């Protein structure tokens, strides 16, 4: 059984290797191979899952040691896997959603000449992501951590001929690297504190370490989580990452990779439990991000960027929950899974819309599409209902638990966090309704608005370069794309209820994450009611603004907040002004320094000797009598010096 764990990672890795190294011969069958291997991984995951179910809760963790990786004196890193309930949850989510998105991509990427490579990258992503969640030590986790970063980089920049895509990919990788550095430092700290960085010894002994150490480790882990999960202040890359093909956005930037930060914090729960300050930092980051993402999501006209803001916000919920400690870990993961379903579904739906609309992404050029793409409309709608927390759908259960747990934090903190979470729920309802209305309802604005030239949609960035108006012909996507959407929609609807039934999900995770019941100052019913009220307010506000009035095709100027939100609340501008401009000046001045000062000193020395030489050379003036003077003087000095030596 244990040996199968390796297969989980191995199958997609093999796929990646074959697809990326294989030649053009694989172009025709490559996508099927990739999908097959992803599915194989899912099947293996399912087998392992059922095997696991057959055992007692405390005995479900499995280990598989493959080989000793970096054996150095006093330092040990192995390639070894650990499959417990937490990892299992992720494995199923990753391989399941992953497989669906592979299938979807077959249709979505049909006309792309580099489809084989796309599937190679997708497989690479799956392998790295599985490595991340299966590793039994932080260093191997780090490999997966950066591996998914690489896959993300490759996939965001998949359409490399678009400068914006290449820039976005680079930005994503760089911002993630900042987080990675945090993870690296956390590992160093673990090594110096515990002499190890494998899960078992570190987590089991976390209680022995001083709180200061644990806080430091926790903060560094939080930094890592911020990078990967696009949390404030490292959130700026996620919006740009929407340059990637939409299946990528669905899989990586919605369902799986961006939630790795939640996994990291949950996995390191033992460390955070001993470091309340670090936990506080986590909840603050989560709370800030959930508002930040939500506000940004309200202002974006690009459907994918609106969804990206939403992702940020939803992960904020998860981080918030994870920061609450054992009260919230299980809810964080639960929301993570449900979010995986509905957000993937939403993105795939968005992709389907774009597919039918000449890759137009501006919602102001959509409208009334429900008639033309019914399947997309229904699945997207179900996802919409799930995310806003419509009672009975998955988002309702998972989000409600988090809000409840936030209130349960107790004291002023509890009220603030709960209030923020509640506010977030309202805003979520608002912006999602906005997306829904602008896309599927109202006038068919696409009939009059200019859209990009249809002949080369891949060359000309849809939103920036406008060609002659060619009326799009919205149409439903092929089955290979709609089926995954349908599956995900089912998941969005049902997952929450299934998990909630008998607290099955919490019980499942409990051996790994522990679980405590929170003590909200108000009863759960009050919280639920408040949540539903917030939902109604949000939906109502959006309907008032977009449903009752026509949507202007060109965005109005908007108030200050709207304008700031469109620019990601100016955070990018700040980055640009401080980091990019400052960095450019720094490197330029350093280049100058290196040439003129450091190297200048060297060349200057050479020049100085040259000058000295030229001067001394003039003494040799060709007159024999000068030479004689030199000799005579030399003799005099010689005599004088000799006498002087005797004298002293």
């Amino acid at each position, binding site marked *: 059984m244990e040996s199968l764990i390796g297969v989980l990672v191995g199958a997609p890795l093999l796929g990646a290797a074959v697809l990326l190294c294989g030649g053009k011969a694989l172009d025709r069958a490559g996508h099927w191979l990739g999908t097959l291997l992803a599915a194989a991984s899912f099947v293996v995951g399912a087998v392992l899952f059922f095997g696991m179910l057959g055992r007692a809760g405390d005995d479900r963790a499995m280990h598989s040691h493959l080989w000793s990786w970096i054996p150095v004196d006093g330092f040990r890193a192995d390639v070894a896997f650990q499959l417990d309930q937490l990892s299992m949850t992720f494995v199923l989510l990753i391989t399941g959603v992953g497989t669906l998105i592979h299938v979807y991509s077959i249709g979505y990427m049909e006309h792309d000449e580099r489809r084989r490579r796309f599937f190679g990258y997708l497989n690479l992503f799956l392998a790295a992501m599985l490595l991340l969640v299966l590793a039994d030590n932080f260093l191997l986790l780090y490999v997966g951590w950066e591996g998914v970063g690489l896959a993300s980089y490759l996939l965001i920049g998949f359409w490399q001929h678009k400068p914006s895509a290449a820039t976005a990919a680079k930005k994503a990788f760089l911002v993630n690297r900042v987080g990675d550095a945090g993870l690296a430092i956390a590992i160093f700290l673990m090594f110096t504190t515990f002499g190890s960085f494998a899960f078992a010894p570190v987590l089991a002994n976390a209680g022995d370490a001083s709180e200061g150490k644990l806080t430091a480790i926790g903060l560094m882990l939080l930094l890592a989580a911020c990078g990967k999960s696009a949390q404030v202040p490292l959130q700026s890359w996620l919006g740009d990452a929407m340059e990637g093909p939409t299946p990528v956005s669905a899989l990586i930037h919605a369902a799986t990779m961006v939630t790795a930060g939640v996994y990291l914090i949950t996995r390191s729960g033992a460390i955070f439990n001993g470091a309340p300050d670090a936990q506080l930092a986590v909840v603050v980051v989560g709370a800030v991000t959930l508002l930040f993402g939500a506000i940004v999501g309200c202002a974006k006209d690009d459907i994918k960027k609106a969804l990206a803001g939403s992702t940020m916000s939803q992960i904020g919920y998860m981080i918030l929950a994870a920061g609450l400690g054992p009260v919230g870990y299980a809810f964080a993961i639960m929301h993570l899974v449900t979010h995986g379903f509905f957000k993937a579904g939403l993105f795939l739906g968005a992709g389907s819309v774009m597919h039918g609309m000449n890759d137009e992404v501006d919602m102001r050029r959509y409208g009334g599409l429900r008639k033309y793409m019914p399947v997309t409309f229904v699945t997207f709608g179900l996802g919409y209902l799930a995310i806003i927390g419509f009672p009975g759908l998955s988002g309702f259960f998972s989000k409600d638990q988090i809000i409840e747990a936030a209130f349960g934090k107790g004291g002023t903190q509890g009220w603030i966090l709960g209030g923020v979470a509640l506010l977030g729920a309202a805003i979520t309802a608002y912006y999602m309704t906005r997306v829904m209305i602008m896309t599927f309802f109202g006038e068919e604005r696409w009939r009059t608005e200019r859209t990009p030239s249809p002949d080369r949609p891949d060359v000309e960035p849809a939103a920036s370069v406008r060609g002659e108006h060619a009326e799009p012909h919205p149409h439903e996507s092929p089955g290979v794309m709609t089926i995954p959407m349908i599956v995900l929609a089912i998941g969005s609807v049902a997952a929450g209820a299934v998990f909630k039934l008998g607290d099955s999900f919490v019980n499942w995770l409990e051996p790994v994450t522990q679980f405590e019941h929170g003590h909200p100052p108000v009863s759960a019913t009050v919280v639920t009611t408040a949540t539903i009220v917030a939902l109604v307010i949000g939906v109502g506000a959006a309907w008032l603004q977009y449903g009752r009035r026509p949507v202007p095709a060109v965005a109005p100027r908007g108030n200050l907040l709207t304008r700031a939100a469109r620019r990601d609340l100016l955070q990018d501008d700040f980055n640009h002004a401080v980091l990019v401009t400052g960095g450019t000046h720094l490197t330029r001045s350093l280049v100058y320094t290196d040439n003129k000062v450091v190297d200048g000193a060297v060349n200057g020395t050479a020049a100085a000797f040259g000058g000295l030489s030229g001067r001394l*050379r003039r003494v040799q003036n*060709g007159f024999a009598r000068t030479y004689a003077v030199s*000799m005579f*003087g030399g*003799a005099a000095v010689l005599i004088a010096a*000799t006498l002087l030596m005797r004298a002293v």
Partner: protein
Amino acid sequence: MSALVAAGGVPGLWTLADGQKLQAPDIEYGKLSPTLIVLGAAAVGVVLEAFLPRRSRHVAQVFLALLGLAAAFAAVVGLAASGAGSTKAQIAGMGALAVDGPALFLQGTILLVGIVGVITFAERRLEPRAHGAPVDSFAAQPASVPGGEGEQMAVKAGWTTSEVFPLLLFAVGGMLLFPAANDLLLLFIALEVFSLPLYLLCALARRRRLLSQEAAVKYFLLGAFSSAFLLFGTALLYGYAGTVSYSGIARVVSGADATTDPVLAQTTGNDALLLIGGALVVMGLLFKVGAVPFHMWTPDVYQGAPTPVTGFMAAATKVAAFGALLRLLYVVLPGLRWDWRPVMWGVAILTMLAGAVVAITQTDIKRLLAYSSIAHAGFLLVGTIATSKDGISSVLFYLGAYSFVTLGAFSVVTLVRDAGGEATHLSKWAGLGRRSPLLAGVFAVFLLAFAGIPLTSGFAGKFAVFKAAAEGGAGALVVVGVIASAIAAFFYLRVIVLMFFSEPRADGPSVAVPSVLTSSAIAVGVVVTIVLGVAPQYFLELAGHAGVFVR
């Protein structure tokens, strides 16, 4: 001489006492044979010059010179083999000459240098034939006015200055005596014996005769000036010690004899005599080695002299002069070590740095090599200052290594020619490596050896002297030496860059195809450079065994 006086015993007695016979001086001809052979060959050469017809002189002189030098070298080897260099080292020639390790080692080196020198002197393939007759690098008729009728007639007649070979032999004879001289008189005589022929040789260039003559005049006047200093120093030392023999002076300096003789007690009380005299003698020698500030003749003379002469002179003079300097400092003045060492420190530092720095901006290859030789004199002084057995042997080794590199380098210079003769201006050497990779490669080997790059003889030599100096407590001098080496590396590199990395000039020089003579001279240089670089142990041992002066 002191032996003569010792027999007298009474001051002012100019005649022999009754019953005493004038003793015949006791000369160990065997021990002196190398010098005698060379001087004899030189005398025969003069005779040949008088009696042989012009056409046959060249061959005869070359043959005679090579024979004489080879025989002398054989004699040196024989002496060394018989232990004269180590166990049976002795003072010969009634106290005038030392036959010991350093003397034999240096004599051997000088003779080898002489042989290679003769070979380069004899080269007749480089100059275009003058009216059908092969000519060498020397003037057709030195006495004639440059560009005048006399010169044209001499050229037309195909004359050459075959006197150069006896002159070279005389110079070698003097040089053999110079490091062996064990009293100040012989030191002076030997100095003159090897200097005078060199003055003449400098004047004998076939091309650029004005430069050649100017070099001779400068060399001569300054040389005479310096020998006057040396002589005056000799006189003062004689005044101090009452003797000119090295061992005698050394004894007086160490205070062994002062008690018995009242006059001596008076003069030895005056340290000024000793110090000034010593300084002046040392100065005379420093002039010959080309140490700063007595170096200024070097660039001009090296540039003006015919290149084969420059090569010979640069190598052999340095060997002989350092031999004499070593003996003087180690045998005569060891008692004054604490007086002369600091002064020599200063001279060594100045020499190394000035030589290296000024060389940077030189534009003539021969002048550049001259400054390089000044810098090398500085490195040799570092070894000299060590005042240890290792110091002596390191200098001996360095001299051997250096002289062959120098000979080789100047031989290469003779090959790079254009219409005006040798193309010594550096700009003409641009791109030589692309036209003639082999020659440029060989020259690069020599330059790298000069620069002291490992696996060349220059490195082994430099390491030896630095090691000796460091052990002798002159660590600071080693550091200065290292700095000077770094500066020096710059100008050697400049030449390499010029040869290999510059585009050849359209009007660039051509490389003459030498006869077997110059080729073999260069080949010897390369082989010695590499052998001494890669496997120097045998020669280091040789120099090590030779590192003891007889007193």
